[in-house]
């Protein structure tokens, strides 16, 4: 039996929509953001429209039921039902959208704001574009010393950072549940792997309050670590972060 084309189109759309939800929310256990799903569906609808209408005959087949519904006198009852139901559904949709809820408003915030070119860290003005990790060079020059530095960084991390960022550096430390947004997951390929070491240095040293205005609202609870740690401790912790996760800091030089 051949399924009518209009039904086909609707089924495809519904399939894709629930497919996304099933795959992400259930199978992968990582919800798909509703804002993203809405945009995805917009373009899926566009794609389905394109495939179903590029041919004249098939288009006629597609719109035939709609046309019949509007024009065919024998479908009067159906027409009246549809004409009554559609505004009701639209009204209900509008109501659901506008209904006030206890959900806090969306906070749109840039997670990686562009750092300032220079920042005042440890009483010094540093140029973030040129700043380099003074210990990074040991990775090649003196691997043994490098290992030692990484281990020192690990101690700093465990004593200070793991409460929030977790002992696996996955952002799931004991305190993480109390924070919103939750602490950064350094294992993620989209976090420290995308950044230069100088960026991490700036972010760790100046913490949440050091974020530029465009990153507002400041809902980062990251402390201003320059008040608690020494400069070399921050650099060592950075070594540890990359070493443990296996990521490489972003650099503009080839190896």
């Amino acid at each position, binding site marked *: 039996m051949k399924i009518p084309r209009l039904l086909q189109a609707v089924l495809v759309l519904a399939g894709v929509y629930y497919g996304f939800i099933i795959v992400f929310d259930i199978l992968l256990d990582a919800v798909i953001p509703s804002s993203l799903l809405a*945009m995805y569906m917009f373009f899926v609808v566009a794609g389905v429209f394109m495939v179903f209408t590029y041919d004249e005959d098939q288009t006629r087949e597609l719109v035939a039921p709609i046309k019949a519904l509007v024009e065919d006198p024998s479908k009067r009852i159906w027409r009246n039902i549809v004409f009554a139901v559609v505004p009701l559904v639209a009204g209900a949709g509008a109501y659901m959208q506008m209904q006030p809820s206890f959900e806090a408003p969306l906070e*749109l915030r*840039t997670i990686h704001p562009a750092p300032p070119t220079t920042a005042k860290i*440890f*009483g*010094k*003005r540093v140029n973030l574009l040129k700043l380099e990790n003074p210990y990074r060079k040991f990775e090649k020059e003196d691997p043994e010393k490098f290992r030692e530095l990484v281990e020192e960084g690990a101690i700093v991390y465990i004593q200070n950072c793991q409460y929030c960022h977790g002992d696996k550096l996955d952002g799931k430390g004991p305190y993480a549940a109390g924070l919103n947004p939750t602490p950064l997951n350094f294992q993620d390929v989209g976090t420290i792997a995308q950044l230069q070491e100088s960026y991490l240095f700036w972010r760790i040293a100046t913490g949440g309050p050091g974020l530029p*205005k*465009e990153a507002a609202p400041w809902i980062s609870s990251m402390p201003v670590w320059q008040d608690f740690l020494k400069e070399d401790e921050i650099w060592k912790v950075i070594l540890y972060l990359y070493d443990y996760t296996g990521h490489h800091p972003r650099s503009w030089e080839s190896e």
Partner: protein
Amino acid sequence: MRQFLSVIVFSLLTIGFFAGYSNFGIPQIEPAPPPKEEKLDLGSMTMDQFIAVGEKLFSGKGTCTLCHNNLGRAPLLDTIGEVAQQRLKDPRYKGEATNIEEYLIESLVKPSAFVVAGFGKKGTNDAESPMPDVSGGSIRLDEAEITAVVAYLQDSSGAEVTVEIPKDLGKKKEGGEEADVAEAEPREAISDPEKLIAMFTCDACHMINGVGGEIGPDLSKIGALRNRDYLRRSILDPNADIAEGFEPDQMPEGMGEQLYVSELEVLVSFLAGLK
């Protein structure tokens, strides 16, 4: 007409969609306003702005970065705050400063008070510094400017910034430093070329008769190579000709305003005579 209108509506809807998406589909981040330009009005300046002025002087008018860079012509100053403390206790220290601030000011106007080992003038066994007095010669920073540079040096090296922003910039201190005297009353024209060279510290960069620096071309035999016109032009407009192997913008400009005409000719004759 119907076609025309539907095309118009279609296009407007498309534009409306794009505009709507840009306005409501993505977060509206309000970029930070442009940074404030530092005001030259010292009275209402914050310390950060004052430090920024010092930084500008350091790489600009003060010409400090010509030598204090990573090419090894002069010591790097990134840790001067810490180092200065040790210098004061160094047996080789000949100055009178008692704290970092005084030491830095002294180093700027009397560079030979302490010479870092290996950076002394050639042949003086590190007793004399090749650095010119920044309050005189062709650099000629005034007191407030020197203070700003010191503030910058303290700030950039991690030391505590102890200087105060001078409030009474308009009035000159009386009976004070060399620079003020030099500007206050016209000086006598100098007819001794050696004195002129010492005053304008040409030998900080140029080798003259076997003594001097290597930042600029060796002038020991310049008379044999260049004529008087060329020499005159090179003093007045240093970037007019650049000797092979040297960078432009190294030699300070504005010698023309500081030399008397007679002095210029004394210098040119002296240089032309070096063969």
